[in-house]
């Protein structure tokens, strides 16, 4: 790849074929608009067979993946960008692979002695082999109710269920398996839901103001996430200073132990005792009109356009300083 020309060209990738395509398209539009306002030349692209020829025609362009769900967040596309030496915003493929899979990410975070829910990850087949009723009973005994059931590799709360009674568990498992072959079952943590973004604009990582999430329905599901007006957001969260500090530290530690880069968002629950518990991390957080990260950026006194443009310049700079193999 040749050095970047001026002005910097950015290829914003949005869409894809994951279940979150619609969300990604919305995020992509917003990021594109923000980058243009930041003075960059932006080309929007879907992920299809025209992508690689398009990249070949844009030497020096930086890719800004705004893809949610598989391919965008599981590292697959980023592996391709690295192979082609195309600079891109965000974490490297190996880190994404770990972060995107809830069962693996939670294990890594727990191994770093950070607080996580008690969790097991089970493929559908194990229920068939061991007998569903016995295993369901064991889950109830060991994890306890209420519990959360989620697809291991999915976002936007798709396929997630809170299970309060044993008889609800099989249905929740079926709902999670509709999104993928492995489901995680974890203890339900009561408390305040918050999201903390971590950004590195080239001057070191910083945690953005904490966003507290209060869905009207009580559940931050797909409808609450993407229906404007259905959720109240408080930024910064109504937390005391010490608790807020612990939340920021957790997000920074998660970003660090998972080897993430540029931008991440960690979702957590703050218990009544003020202890933040890790739920999951996003390497390509939502940037829609109802997403929490743009809100946190605004609360930080930054503009989305300037911040995204800085991330692009950081990515371009990485490409220029990368060692020649």
């Amino acid at each position, binding site marked *: 790849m040749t050095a970047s020309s001026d002005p910097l060209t950015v290829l914003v990738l949005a869409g894809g*074929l*994951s*279940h*979150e*395509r*619609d*969300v990604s*398209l919305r995020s992509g539009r917003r990021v594109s608009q923000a980058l243009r306002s930041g003075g960059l030349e932006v080309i929007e692209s879907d992920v299809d067979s025209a992508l690689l020829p398009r990249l070949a025609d844009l030497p020096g362009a930086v890719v800004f993946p705004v893809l949610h769900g598989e391919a965008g967040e599981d590292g697959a596309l980023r592996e391709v960008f690295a192979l082609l030496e195309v600079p891109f915003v965000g974490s490297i493929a190996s880190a994404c692979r770990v972060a995107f899979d809830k069962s693996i990410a939670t294990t890594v975070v727990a191994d770093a002695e950070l607080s996580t829910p008690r969790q097991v990850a089970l493929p*559908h087949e194990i*229920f*068939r082999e061991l007998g*569903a*009723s016995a295993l369901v009973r064991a889950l109830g005994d060991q994890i306890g109710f209420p519990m959360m059931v989620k697809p291991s590799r999915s976002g*936007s709360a*798709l*396929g997630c269920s809170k299970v309060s009674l044993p*008889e609800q568990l*099989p*249905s929740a*498992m*079926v*709902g999670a*398996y*509709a*999104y993928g072959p492995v489901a995680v079952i974890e203890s339900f943590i009561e408390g305040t839901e918050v999201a903390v973004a971590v950004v590195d*604009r080239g*001057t*070191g*990582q*910083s945690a*953005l*103001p904490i966003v507290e999430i209060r869905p009207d329905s009580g559940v931050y599901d*797909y*409808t609450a*996430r*993407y*229906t*404007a*007006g*259905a*959720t*109240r*957001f*408080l*930024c*910064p969260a109504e937390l005391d200073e010490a608790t807020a500090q612990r939340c920021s530290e957790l997000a920074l530690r998660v970003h660090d132990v998972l080897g993430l880069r540029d931008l991440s968002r960690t979702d957590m629950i703050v218990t009544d005792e003020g202890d933040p518990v890790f739920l999951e991390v996003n390497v390509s957080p939502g940037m829609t*009109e*109802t997403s929490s990260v743009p*809100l946190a950026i*605004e*609360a*930080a*006194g930054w503009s989305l356009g300037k911040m995204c443009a800085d991330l692009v310049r950081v990515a371009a700079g990485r490409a220029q300083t990368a060692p020649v193999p």
Partner: protein
Amino acid sequence: MALDRVHRRDTRLDDYVDRYAARTHKMTASAIRALFAVANRPEVVSLAGGMPNITDLPLDVVGSILNELVITSGRQAMQYSSGQGEPQMREAICEVMKLEGISAHPDDVTVTVGSQQGLDLVTRIFCDPGDVVLCEAPSYVGALGVFRGLQCEVVHVAMDDNGLRPDALTEALAGLRAAGKRVKFLYCIPNFHNPAGVSQTLERRTAIMEIAQRADLLVVEDNPYGLLGFEGDPTPAMRALDSDRVIYLGSFSKTFAPGFRVGWVLAPHAVREKLVLAQESATLCPPAFSQYAISAYLANHDWHGQIKIFREMYRDRRDAMLAGLADDMPGGTSWTVPGGGFFVWVTLPPGLDSHAMLPRAVTARVAYVPGTAFYADGFGSRHMRLSYCFPTPDRIREGTRRLGEVLQYEAGVLETFGETVEDARARLPYEAPGANQA
């Protein structure tokens, strides 16, 4: 890096949230609807959408008609027009309706922006919030949207392979009367039903109209597919059986092209007067250019022959879908055999849930519409609507092959966990058409 100053936000990210009408708060994002963003990608075989296939429309003919129209009548065609619709359009509509046995005067026709707007106007004219509308079970999703938007109570009436069941209609009317509820009209699609794919026989239509007369029930007949039958002549419309009790909705979207957005309502004179006033409030007038274009198309092109071409094309696709279903569906699955139109209604083996398994289907690159979309009361999880109108026969076969694999996998999950759908809504007392077909 420390943040210098934090700008506090307490927001719902919608500055208008406290100003919306109460009914607007029910307009929410849906994960299932979002999945259709994936379904529109070319990698996915979409058996979901009911988009008419206009590949066979002679664009050169349409192009020369539009060219001639602009040159000769452009100033009238691009002007505002009558709220009721252009006279020559309404005369042509009466000619079209004759094919299904309807004798009508152009004065009783109101042109609308697709028949969808016709249904919206009719519902606005007749229904107050809380009024009951009777619908087939299942019913057209766009109609349910209109009724929901205008805060009607939808009561479904069971169907079988010959359409709406007269005994179920009688029972529903009696139940509602006993409950002191007022039924404003029965909404039904007698030909090649969307989504069920079945048609009412003439005997069935006669029986339903007799019940309607006895109960003093108004009938709204929605007939977008009536001329797209694969065998024989069209069955006489319900409107042909009773001109005072039936409000008829027609459309050029399936017999010509949907982009012109021209439909119509044929209604008794008093209702027609209200319709025109309602139309003027809603749009001032339906699009004049589209009406001029369709009138010219009907006058200058062999539109009967064109409909025949459409019918044959849809029949080939229907055949491909039926063959694919026979080859690929697991045991215990059944489906209707449409004699025309666009849709097959599939009944899944007990315990399978079309709504819950849609994400897996999209992952397998095939899409359908879950049956729950066609009921106002949450029923329908064991059903799905498959459209054969748009994909090529080869793509349809590929779609049923993928769908068959999804169903096999789902059956495996079901076998593991047992019947998990403990939802009373799945057990409402109406059977769906095709449920007993092997």
